[in-house]
């Protein structure tokens, strides 16, 4: 091991090592502004979606054709071959790939093998449940993560900070399904306060199905019935899954708010505000917190992916019949057409959400768009 020759010059990159995701460097980017930024971002999500869809296709098909995977062993070789031929899986892979791309482009992500439903239909049916769960979880994450993050930043390196940081790490370290199991055990089984699983009780579900225009989002449907008992039923079912999934994200928010508020608390304008006699609470909540929000908004975009991954596990734990629950169902049925379609479509959703979040960040903070 020889010594490395030249020292790194001290004037290079003082910031943390996270390479900027959004900041597509443009030289001399004084003009252009928001419109140009949006155009660049739109052009960037096209390759992203294309790559993800291609990746999923290549990976899933490298195992062989879906029909053998689903039915292999149950049918004779001749029957299998016949089915494979009928579905077109015996053609060259690149032909199938372009066909798949063409279909995906028009919004057709295939038809599930096991129950013969268009994948897009599956997504529409179950997506609302996942959306609802993600929404509740985000509320929990905001309510828990942001105030606690401010507290931790203010009491930096003191007892409260240490406690909150360990709490944040615990939020991250606890798998959502274990958190879910514990919550179920304590609040549903031992205390018997909340329902064990599902999105609503059977009677409430029946009442909501008879609505003229059910949205699939149970909270809205429950309000449509006008029956407070149903609203309460839906909400009580949502509490535990929302906490299990929300705490995961809350830990991330807590750390993020803490780091950023620590940064802004040491700025000069905070000092000057303090010297003007602004109260400490107001100092944290207005002066330090507002500018710290910007990085948080950009990170929420990344949280969507975490949230969706967590939703798969949470939904399985609580039998919350959303996308993740359904995905696991298809995985167990070895219905890889459905899996491929759902994963590809989820990739599209994530890319689009990230795009929207980036635009919002650019609207709020002019520095992002250079």
């Amino acid at each position, binding site marked *: 091991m020889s010594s490395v020759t030249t020292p790194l010059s001290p004037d290079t*990159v003082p910031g943390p090592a996270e390479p900027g995701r959004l900041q597509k460097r443009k030289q001399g980017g004084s003009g252009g502004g928001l419109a140009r930024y949006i155009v660049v971002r739109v052009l960037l999500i096209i390759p992203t979606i294309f*790559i993800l869809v291609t990746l999923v296709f290549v990976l899933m098909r490298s195992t062989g054709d879906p029909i053998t995977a689903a039915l292999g062993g149950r049918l004779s070789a001749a029957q299998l071959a016949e089915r494979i031929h009928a579905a077109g899986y015996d053609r060259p892979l690149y032909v199938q790939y372009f066909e798949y791309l063409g279909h995906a482009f028009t919004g057709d992500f295939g038809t599930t093998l096991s129950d013969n439903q268009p994948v897009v239909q599956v997504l529409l049916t179950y997506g609302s449940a996942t959306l609802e769960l993600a929404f509740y979880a985000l509320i929990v994450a905001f309510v828990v993560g942001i105030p606690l993050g401010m507290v931790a930043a203010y009491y930096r390196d003191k007892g409260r900070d240490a406690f909150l940081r360990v709490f944040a790490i615990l939020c991250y370290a606890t798998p959502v399904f274990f958190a879910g*199991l514990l919550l179920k055990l304590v609040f549903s089984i031992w205390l018997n306060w909340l329902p064990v699983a599902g999105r609503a009780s059977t009677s409430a579900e029946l009442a909501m199905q008879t609505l003229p225009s059910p949205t699939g989002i149970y909270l809205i449907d429950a309000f449509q019935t006008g029956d407070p008992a149903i609203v309460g039923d839906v909400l009580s079912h949502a509490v535990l899954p929302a906490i299990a999934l929300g705490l995961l994200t809350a830990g991330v928010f807590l750390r993020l708010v803490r780091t950023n508020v620590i940064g802004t608390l040491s700025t000069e304008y905070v000092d000057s505000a303090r010297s003007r006699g602004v109260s400490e609470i107001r100092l944290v909540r207005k002066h330090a917190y507002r500018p710290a929000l910007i990085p948080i908004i950009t990170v929420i975009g990344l949280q969507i992916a975490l949230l969706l991954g967590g939703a798969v596990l949470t939904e399985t734990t609580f039998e919350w019949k959303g996308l993740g629950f359904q995905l696991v169902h298809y995985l167990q049925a070895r219905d890889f057409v459905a899996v491929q379609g759902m994963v590809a479509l989820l990739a599209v959703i994530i890319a689009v959400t990230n795009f929207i979040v980036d635009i919002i960040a650019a609207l709020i903070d002019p520095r992002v768009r250079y």
Partner: protein
Amino acid sequence: MTEPSLATTPTAKRSIWSRIPVIHQLRQSVGLQRGMLIAGLVITGIFVLVAIFAPVISPYGYAQLSDAHGQFGAQQAPGGAHIWGTTVGGFDVYSRVLWGAQTAIVVIIVSVLLSIFAGIFLGLVSGYFGGWLDRVLVVVCDAIYAFPSLLLAIVMAIVISGGQSSLWGGIFAAAISITVVFIPQYFRVIRAEAVRIKAEAYVESAKVVGASNSRIMFRHVLRNSTRTLPLIFTLNSSEAVLTLAGLGFLGFGIEPTSASEWGYDLNKALSDVTSGIWWTSLFPGLAIVLGVLGITLVGESLNDLADPRLRGRRAVAGTAGVVAETSVVPGGTLTAGPGGLGGLEGGIPGGYGSEVRP
């Protein structure tokens, strides 16, 4: 790429002891941060020890269903011969939790090593040569990075094992699935560093002297771009445990007869909970939490110590120049800390919480 070289810094001529990454940070830290780091190291150490000595400590095998006294019986409450009870499949919970540490460690090692090698290589080539290859790799890695890692790992698990795993096949399937998720992280960090370093004067002089591309890449660029690796290494290790457990929970884990895996046990415990059986889920779950907690505490502490804004502060913040220097060389000996030399190694008595607000 050996351990000591991770912390190689311009200020050479230090003992091997102070160049081992974590040891150095341990000496650099003070107060609360040191407490967190030590707590993390202790938990991680226990975790590793349990993994190594699982065959010795655990009273039964991970797939053992009976002993001299006959069958264990399913869902036996804790007590007697089974201090943590038995699972629905009739395994001893205590033994399976201990053996699970071994599986987790093996998966961590395989997945992190694979992703380090692949990610570093791709990042170096991409950052150093630039051009269209760089652009393509960046877009691909960004796309993968934005994708839910668990979904990607599921897809990979299907690809590798068809969703069904045997002995080492299962461990490798899980490890490689996790690897694919991690490669973009190493890639991005190393690439960013390579792009920065290749503009440095010493790279240019190496070129002038006539050093080959590969020599410059591996000797000059790589050696100087590894400063954040210990940090990502720890964070990834904890994520590997979680992803493995997630895969196991969804039924893509390792069969109980091949190895013990906590996520699988939790999956089987899902229905137990409804009937109030707590021991089958509590212990494997706590094992995951503790393992991840330990590793994350170490990672968090390393992160804070590498970032001058978050490092435990004393007196007044340092000047910009000093901050830049320390942040470039987090593993190096701190000749000047944010607050000057005072107490960097020893710690100031009462230094914490006694800082004066301006």
